């Protein structure tokens, strides 16, 4: 620190000292020390709990024969299909519904406001209790859903969790149930922050209903919608709970997604390297997503 205070006195700094000053930026002396001290905890967390596990995982999953073992596993092939379906339906259905519902909740009235308070409940309730409840609700023989269908409409519902596509659909629906409020609230806030003058001008020009949505509201929300789609894709890739508790990967391991298959391979099968490889096989999808998202998030900061 001594050299730093010397340079402050005004001697023309050169060589090592100028480099030192460059790193300090506008801060000097004890200020710089404090500024560094303040970021040390986060850097520690980042190195110990992000960088180290990432590198360790990369090392665990580095052997090529793991991937040949993985790709020849029929359960893994099914899992890939499930993951893609989960992404395609989960992300798009959820965000499209959220977009529509955010318009619904823009309406005035006490009833709409009360409904919004109730609608947010699934997000506030912890994941596990709700998913266990949904699991039991979907039981073919004693579940609430089939009982309701039978008593109200006389329909014998299917046993939702004993058939692959019903079970996967149930997991996707549960995911949407849990996370729809979150994205709706974000899109609602996005709509509310739209400049009112533009909306008024559109009205004066005669844009109503669908037209005002298609030509005025949506173009202004498009960038936000894109960022949210990318973010939702990444969050959904990592969603372990909705599949694990609703369908449990069953029947006969036919509804796993990558997040649950990784854990199954690592713990139920006792082969952690294979579990890591299963997760790593999502990297070709994840890396471009992360790159676009990181750029978008920075530009979004400026625009919104």
């Amino acid at each position, binding site marked *: 620190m001594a050299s730093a205070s010397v340079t402050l006195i005004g001697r023309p700094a050169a060589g090592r000292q100028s480099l030192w000053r*460059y790193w*300090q*930026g506008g*801060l000097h002396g*004890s*200020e710089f020390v*404090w*500024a560094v001290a303040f*970021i040390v905890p*986060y850097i520690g*967390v*980042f190195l110990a*709990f*992000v960088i180290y*596990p*990432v590198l360790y*995982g990369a090392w665990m999953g580095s052997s090529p024969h793991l991937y040949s073992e993985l790709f020849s596993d029929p359960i893994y092939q099914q899992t890939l299909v499930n993951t893609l379906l989960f992404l395609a339906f989960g992300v798009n259905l959820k965000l499209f519904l959220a977009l*529509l519902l955010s*318009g*619904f909740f823009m309406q005035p009235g006490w009833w*709409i406001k009360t*409904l919004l308070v*109730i609608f947010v409940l699934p*997000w*506030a*309730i912890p994941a*596990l*209790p*709700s998913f*266990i*409840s*949904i699991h*039991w*609700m979907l039981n073919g*023989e004693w579940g609430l859903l089939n*009982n309701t269908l*039978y008593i109200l409409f006389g329909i014998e519902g299917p046993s939702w969790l004993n058939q692959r596509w019903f079970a996967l659909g149930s997991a996707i629906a549960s995911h949407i*149930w849990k996370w729809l409020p979150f*994205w709706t609230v*974000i899109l609602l*806030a996005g709509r509310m922050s739209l400049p009112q003058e533009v909306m008024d001008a559109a*009205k004066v020009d005669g844009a*109503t*209903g669908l*037209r*005002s*949505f298609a030509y005025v509201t949506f173009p202004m929300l498009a960038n936000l919608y894109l*960022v949210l789609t990318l*973010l939702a894709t990444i*969050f959904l890739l*990592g*969603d372990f*709970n909705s599949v694990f508790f609703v369908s*449990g990967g069953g029947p006969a391991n036919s509804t796993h997604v990558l997040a649950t298959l990784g*854990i199954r391979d690592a713990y139920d099968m006792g082969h*952690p390297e294979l*579990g890591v490889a299963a997760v790593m096989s*999502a990297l070709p999808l994840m890396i471009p997503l*992360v790159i676009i998202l990181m750029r978008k998030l920075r530009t979004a900061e400026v625009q*919104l």
Partner: protein
Amino acid sequence: MSATTVSAAHAVPYSARRKGRAARRRRWLIRVATLLLSVVILVWTIMPIYNMVMVALEAEGDVFGEHIWPPKPSPRSFWIVVSQGYWYLEYFWHQFGNSVFIAVMTTLLVLSIGSLTSFSVARMRLKNGWLITNAALLTYVIPASFLAIPFYLIMNHYGLHDNPWSVIAALVTFATPYAIFIFQEYGRSIPLELDESARIDGASPVQVYFRIYLPLMAPALVAVGTYALLLAWNEYLYQFLLLSNKRSMTVPVALAQFTNSDQAPWNYMMATAIIYALPPVATYYAFRRRMSSGLTMGGVKG
């Protein structure tokens, strides 16, 4: 149907200006559509929650029956849970305490680490602070469950096996990036001149942090604190992997153990689930307004 409702939302003040039968019929249609959609939303949202309450109010034998209302509703299951009167619930309050401990520690650490980092980067303008922001952004977009396996093995290297601090470390790792964004975004609304004038008056960085930064950041601290608390309460995978002893595990881990058995006492499980869900729901509704503005900042701006 939903599409028309959305457009309808914008059309209401519009059609009101026009007069005539068409407009009146249209308004009536909108009202009916709104009502129908409200019912659909209500049923969709409430059904799993209703199921939770219904099963919790049932007696053991009645769980397996074809009804949509408990035949003999009684709060006995709640009493069994609260008094730990069933073998799988014997450590319930201990496990509840573990959940509280983990959530509170996570919140405190996220708030202090997050605010210190963003104070240094955004307020003191540490050179190359953007590197930290990017590191945080990168962590934010890594799905936590993808890191679970190496994280679990590393905790053994650190000697933190079956230790609540390993869970706290995981939660802090994945919640702090969000805190850093929110603090940096929110901090933009506080003029930097405040810090500068305090510095000229001779305040040290530590004093500026405690006396100026933290008090002005209070709303953001509340929003992020609630977020961290809910995140810790929501999390299952890391708690399941890292905690194995009955005395060190948390409520969700203990609860999940029983879904796998054939003899699952569903009424006790649902009562446990409701008791476990109450604190976050209460917290959320208490801080709802601040939460949603915080969420928006995070969702919109990363």
